[in-house]
């Protein structure tokens, strides 16, 4: 499904990713942990095609398709979804309208029929329920005036509607209180399935109590330095990152 081989990337003159190798099979949830500045978010951005990064080596394929040569929208249409650490506000653009435009762009690219407003509204309302989200949120502008928790829930709603093959969560837990964290995690868990994989980028182990990963990778200095099962996260929580990186870095 997702295969990353020797991925290297830099921002301006700064090398950030120094050869990442990672394979995620269908249905698996992988967590990427690591100290600040280790390249976690960069990995999420590079996979989704955010401008500003230069790929200096390696390759990434999703179901055999070369991701790195695709535009961000074509990656999204191929099934890559990034839940943003800082979801962006788009004033004046209705949340439902935005989501419908996005879904139809993706459907169109697959040669599927576009949904009309009525069918779409039915679909989105059904997706809202398990997220414990207020329907009023659909009538507001995209992320405008949303609280931190509402923004993250909105990301999960979008993911639920767009049904990606690969969901990348970029520090989705940052800025969430425990109740919101649970709702978000429940939303993600509900989306888990044998054909959908997740890459969960997080600084803290806390999120992984709720979204239990199949594998945990520790990223430091732009490389994966350790891989283990879910218990690795607990070990990191206890010991910090220092014992792995040889530096005095505390989680």
């Amino acid at each position, binding site marked *: 499904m997702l295969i990353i081989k020797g991925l290297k990337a830099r921002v301006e003159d700064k090398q950030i990713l120094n050869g990442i190798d990672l394979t995620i099979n269908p249905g698996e949830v992988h967590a990427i942990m690591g100290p600040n500045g280790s390249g976690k978010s960069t990995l999420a951005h590079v996979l989704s095609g955010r401008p500003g990064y230069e790929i200096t080596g390696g390759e990434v394929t999703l179901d055999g398709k070369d991701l790195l040569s695709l535009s961000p929208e074509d990656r999204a249409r191929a099934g890559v979804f990034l839940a943003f650490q800082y979801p*962006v506000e*788009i004033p004046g653009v209705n949340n439902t309208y935005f989501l419908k435009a996005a879904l139809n762009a993706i459907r169109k690219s697959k040669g599927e029929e576009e949904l009309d407003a009525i069918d779409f509204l039915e679909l989105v309302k059904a997706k809202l329920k398990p997220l414990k989200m207020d329907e009023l949120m659909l009538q507001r502008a995209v992320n405008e005036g949303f609280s931190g928790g509402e923004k993250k829930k909105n990301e999960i709603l979008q993911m639920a509607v767009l049904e990606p093959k690969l969901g990348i969560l970029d520090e989705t837990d940052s800025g969430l209180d425990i109740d919101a964290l649970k709702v978000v995690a429940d939303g993600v868990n509900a989306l888990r399935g044998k054909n959908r994989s997740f890459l969960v980028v997080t600084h803290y182990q806390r999120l992984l109590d709720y979204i239990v990963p199949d594998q945990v990778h520790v990223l430091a200095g732009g490389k994966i330095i350790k891989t283990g099962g879910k218990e690795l996260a607990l070990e990191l929580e206890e010991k910090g990152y220092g014992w792995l990186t040889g530096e005095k870095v505390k989680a």
Partner: protein
Amino acid sequence: MTPKTQEPSVEKVTSEEYKYGFVTDIEADSAPPGLNEDIIRFISHKKKEPQFLLEWRLKAYRQWLKMKTPEWAYVQYPPIDYQDIIYYSAPKAGPKSLDEVDPEILKTFEKLGVPMEERAMLAGVAVDAVFDSVSVGTTFKKKLGEMGVIFCSFSEAVHEHPELIEQYLGSVVPYNDNFYAALNSAVFTDGSFCYIPKGVRCPMELSTYFRINAAKTGQFERTLLIADEDAYVSYLEGCTAPMRDENQLHAAVVEMVALKGAEIKYSTVQNWYPGDKDGKGGIYNFVTKRGACRGDSSKISWTQVETGSAITWKYPSCILQGDNSVGEFYSVAVVNNMQQADTGTKMIHLGKNTKSTIVSKGISAGKGQNTYRGLVRIQPAAENAHNYTQCDSLLMGDKCGAHTVPYIEVKNNTAKVGHEASTSKIGEDQIFYCQQRGLSKEDAVNLIVNGFCKEVFRKLPMEFAVEAQKLLSVSLEGSVG
């Protein structure tokens, strides 16, 4: 998809050119270039105008001679040689069929989704080819006539209703109001006239678009709109299709009068040729638009979407004379490439409990310069006047400019005046966010821009709003690299 295969009837009719002749008289003589009293007499004579109108034109001309080009606007252009302009010429025959129309314009029609039968008229193809619009126009006029609504060309009104012209012409924008208004008063050749009688709610949107005679009103257009007591009218000017014209200078005047309890809603979509990427050849659009809320509880609402012209100089204004009268101004102004716009409004509060709302959205792209310039004046007698102003600017790229110049003069301390302004840049992160959800870059920009303009689009009549959204996307095409 060529016009031929799509619409054989247009082809057929155009091949029978001139079969029906021209609608009105078409003596093929023009005035020589230049402006003097004789030229004005010539125009007035040609149009068989009553004496009072000729005298009014001459007064305006003599005043104009003493006036100077206004230089306070934030726009730059070489001096205009007014002696080099032809002030009266017989209408020229346009292209004979769509095949002769600039393919660029046809492409834009395609993008805007302009119906086939309307494309010919918009592109200036000889009028008799556009049979559909003519018949629509005729039925339309008959229905209005039964309600007592007068809606005709200005020239026609001069002959059919001289008393209304004499009473109202220049009563809102006097002949000596400003340089371009004075010039217009001296030399205007045609335009639109509309009168809604007492208590009549005009059941349809009135549009210059339907009035085929207005197809070539020329560069000095004059519009006069009167809503009698308790009347209502919604008036649409212009259209979203690109308009080309060999005349570079356009100096129009629009005057509106709302009597007691009357309401006028005036919507404009302006898409004159903006010039090429280097700013060559665009239209100078120097317009004076003003409405007087003369009676108590009257209302005038301006909504404009300005995307065309090399230079736009325009301040649709309201004089709130009647007590409890309401003035509104909703504007979207877009500049791209080398375009310059200096636009805004004036709200003059004279009566008690008068209210005004100003919402201005400026979008600058390319090397465009966009200025909001507005005046809110509360006169001493205007007890309890309210104004709310909101000016937002959106920048695309780093070579464009946005400027806000609000003037507020309050001479009555019971007034409540609020002003909010914001400037933002269209964010790379906003665009990426949309792309990450599967939208193309162009769609992302359109979405963001339309969201920015939403408050204004909401004020446009439904169909116009849809067209305006498409127009914006065409105007900003390629502006984000």
